[in-house]
């Protein structure tokens, strides 16, 4: 009896038996992320279902996600409000809001589950107080500033894509998106793109996670703008915890025992977790969907009658049966049946593309660095036809972009400038199949004449053929013989384009196949053109020294070299005041290339320098131009 009372007072479930709500949370998290194979192959699900939003906060860049995040979609829609009114996402949010309110947060939000699991870690807990109640207003600030104002002002006003909450704060994006993608070896090349943004978001995610350990649902209570939106609908939502005023004695136990910052049952902070149902001695509170009771008082003086409880339990079992069958179907569909619309799947049609390697039959055809790129033809936006093999003898850059991708739009003007200043380079910009109509509108007024644009198609696209990932932007650089010298998913700056161009040219300067230096990453990390020196100082390494002077024998400081084998290149530090560059490297024969030199110097036209175990010291002469 005492045990029963204690359990009732604390609102705890029997130990070892998960609460029904926890099972529903787990179910929702699994259903939202039913594309489990995405975690293995590292690719997103990109079928039509992605056009629908799920009710909870679940990043659409999570490899498992089968639907879009309503918060991300709202920011994207507000960003595009200048040309498309955001009716669809607003309608979806209103629908979820009026049907479920913040029951979404309490029952079917994966982030809610994560927060509650973190809170289960046994530590001293921060309880709700006047301070936490004040802090709970913060989420409205996040909603107003990061979700509404910034995307609207930057998007509609300045034409810049900036989903500010996703970009700067959202821990779901870091946890589900970044960590979810990076844990797959298929995305190891994406490590190359991690910079300040990731570092900041990683620290924010850890901070929020730590806060959730000590403070119940800290993100949900203080930060989450989606909860703030659903909170507006809570008062008249069809589903939620509701009070029977005939039974309520106004004792205040419901609010006093609630872990959220509620003022009363069902207010904008209430997530309908149902803890108050067990806390109410009067049996005055129930979780309702319209007139149907989903969870009501099961003990105490006003407990629901036994026949009603039996009926509810039976209905619950039937609902669970249907739900589990639906989950099994979804799992089977997304993981076993549905064709993959991506690089390595069966949906690779590429009717307009042909795989052939006519100019270098000794090289493998593919898009890895050092491989011969497969030939293909495609129709350009201008109406002309583009065939890759027509551009043999020229450096070709193939850029994959999407109109919804902010880094893509930032680098396109640089590509245009690079194309204008380097007429010998062919630049093909291929837009992802999704949002092709928007891409046409975007390009209409740009007047970019030095880029060839193509819109990819879903069924017979270039993306699967050229092994482009779901991450945009991606750039592939081909040398004059069509061999891939660079392939990475990362935005490029103008300087990087110039460096890639020089590298691609350097491979085709008359050297024989054996002397050719293929820029290839040391690990699977594609996109790392040159490998910096360091990373251990094994005893079997040797010190190679190059003394750099001008034609008069005076030392040349600040010159950077790359020591290249047939497969990799390693960057040196700049030469010192004595013109000396020292490098500790594995014993091998290296072709030394100048990759950076001070102004006023130029290389000798015929200078070729090799250094190896038999000649560990060598000299390099640069030409100091007159007046320097």
């Amino acid at each position: 009896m005492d045990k029963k009372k204690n359990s009732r007072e604390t609102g705890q479930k029997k130990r070892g038996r998960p609460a029904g709500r926890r099972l529903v949370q787990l179910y929702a998290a699994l259903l939202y992320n039913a594309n489990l194979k995405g975690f293995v192959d590292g690719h997103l699900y990109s079928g039509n279902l992605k056009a629908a939003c799920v009710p909870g906060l679940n990043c659409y860049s999570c490899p498992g996600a089968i639907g879009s995040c309503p918060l991300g979609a709202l920011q994207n829609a507000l960003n595009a409000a200048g040309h498309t009114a955001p009716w669809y996402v607003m309608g979806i949010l209103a629908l979820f809001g009026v049907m479920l309110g913040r029951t979404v947060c309490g029952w079917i939000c994966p982030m809610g589950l994560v927060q509650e699991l973190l809170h289960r870690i046994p530590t001293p807990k921060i309880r709700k107080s006047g301070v936490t109640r004040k802090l709970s207003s913060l989420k409205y600030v996040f909603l107003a500033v990061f979700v509404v104002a910034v995307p609207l002002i930057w998007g509609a006003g300045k034409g810049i894509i900036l989903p500010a909450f996703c970009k700067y704060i959202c821990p779901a994006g870091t946890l589900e998106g970044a960590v979810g993608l990076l844990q797959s070896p298929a995305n190891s090349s994406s490590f190359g793109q991690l910079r300040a943004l990731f570092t900041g978001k990683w620290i924010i995610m850890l901070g929020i996670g730590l806060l959730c350990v000590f403070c119940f649902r800290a993100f949900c209570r203080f930060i989450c703008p989606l909860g703030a939106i659903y909170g507006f609908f809570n008062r008249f939502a069809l589903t939620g915890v509701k009070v029977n005023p005939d039974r309520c004695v106004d004792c205040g136990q419901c609010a006093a025992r609630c872990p959220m910052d509620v003022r009363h049952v069902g207010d904008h902070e209430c997530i309908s977790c149902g803890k108050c149902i067990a806390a109410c001695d009067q049996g005055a509170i129930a979780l309702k969907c319209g007139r149907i009771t989903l969870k009501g008082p099961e003990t105490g003086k006003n407990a629901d009658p036994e026949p009603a409880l039996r009926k509810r339990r039976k209905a619950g079992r039937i609902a669970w049966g249907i739900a589990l069958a639906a989950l099994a179907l979804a799992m089977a569909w997304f993981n076993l049946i549905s064709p993959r619309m991506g690089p390595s799947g069966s949906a690779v049609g590429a009717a307009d593309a042909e795989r052939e390697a006519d100019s270098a039959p000794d090289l493998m055809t593919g898009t890895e660095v050092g491989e011969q790129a497969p030939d293909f033809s495609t129709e350009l936006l201008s109406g002309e036809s583009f065939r890759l093999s027509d551009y043999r003898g020229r450096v070709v850059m193939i850029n994959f972009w999407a109109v919804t991708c902010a880094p893509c739009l930032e680098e396109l003007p640089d590509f245009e400038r690079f194309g204008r200043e380097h007429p010998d380079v062919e630049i093909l910009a291929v837009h992802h199949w999704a949002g092709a109509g928007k891409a046409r509108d975007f390009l209409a007024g740009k007047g970019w004449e030095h880029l060839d644009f193509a819109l990819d198609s879903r069924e017979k696209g270039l993306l699967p053929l050229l092994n482009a990932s779901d991450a945009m932007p991606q750039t592939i650089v081909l040398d004059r013989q069509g061999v891939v010298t660079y392939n990475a998913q990362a935005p490029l700056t103008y300087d990087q384009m110039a460096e890639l161009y020089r590298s691609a040219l350097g491979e085709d300067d008359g050297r024989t196949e054996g002397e050719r230096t293929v820029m290839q990453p040391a690990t699977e990390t594609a996109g790392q053109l040159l490998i910096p020196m360091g990373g251990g100082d094994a005893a079997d390494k040797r010190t190679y020294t190059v003394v750099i002077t001008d034609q008069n024998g005076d030392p040349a400081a600040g010159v950077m070299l790359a020591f290249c084998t047939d497969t990799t290149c390693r960057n040196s530090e700049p030469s010192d005041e004595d013109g000396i560059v020292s490098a500790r490297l594995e014993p091998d024969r290296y072709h030394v290339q100048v990759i950076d030199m001070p102004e006023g110097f130029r290389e000798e036209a015929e200078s070729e320098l090799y250094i190896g175990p038999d000649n560990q010291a060598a000299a390099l002469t640069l030409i100091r131009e007159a007046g320097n």
Partner: protein
Amino acid sequence: MKGRKAFLIVQSVLCAATAGLLAAAALSLYLEGTARQAAGDLFYSIFTPERAAARLLPILPLLFGSLGMTVGGLILGIRDENQDRPVRDEKLLRSLGGLRDRAVHQQAGPREMYLRAAILVLAAVLIVAGILNGGLEDVLAKGAVICMECVGLG
């Protein structure tokens, strides 16, 4: 009782230390990498799987220690029992008067019913209008591609 309190405090320290070290590992990698890039390595990768693994390795004992204590705590039923007791903040409790009248009632009034119906109709109209004006395609276009800035990659 004292043992339980000590357990909770040690677990807190472990959690905070783990999170702090994970943050410090990322920050130090970033600072080191930016310094290399500033020195002229345009394509220097700040984070690589190898570098990340090397930084995370020393933190693993702390992480596993914390996980072990969590499992132990859950099995032994060690938890801060204050979290289950009603709140005792007097100021907060004073603000909780008149709950019966302010709470959402099981029997929705006519005002709530009309508002609910109106929002449902409005939502349906907005969704249809959104599908017609290309909003659906926009959501698909964003969802089908990895949002680099959302996940912190771009």
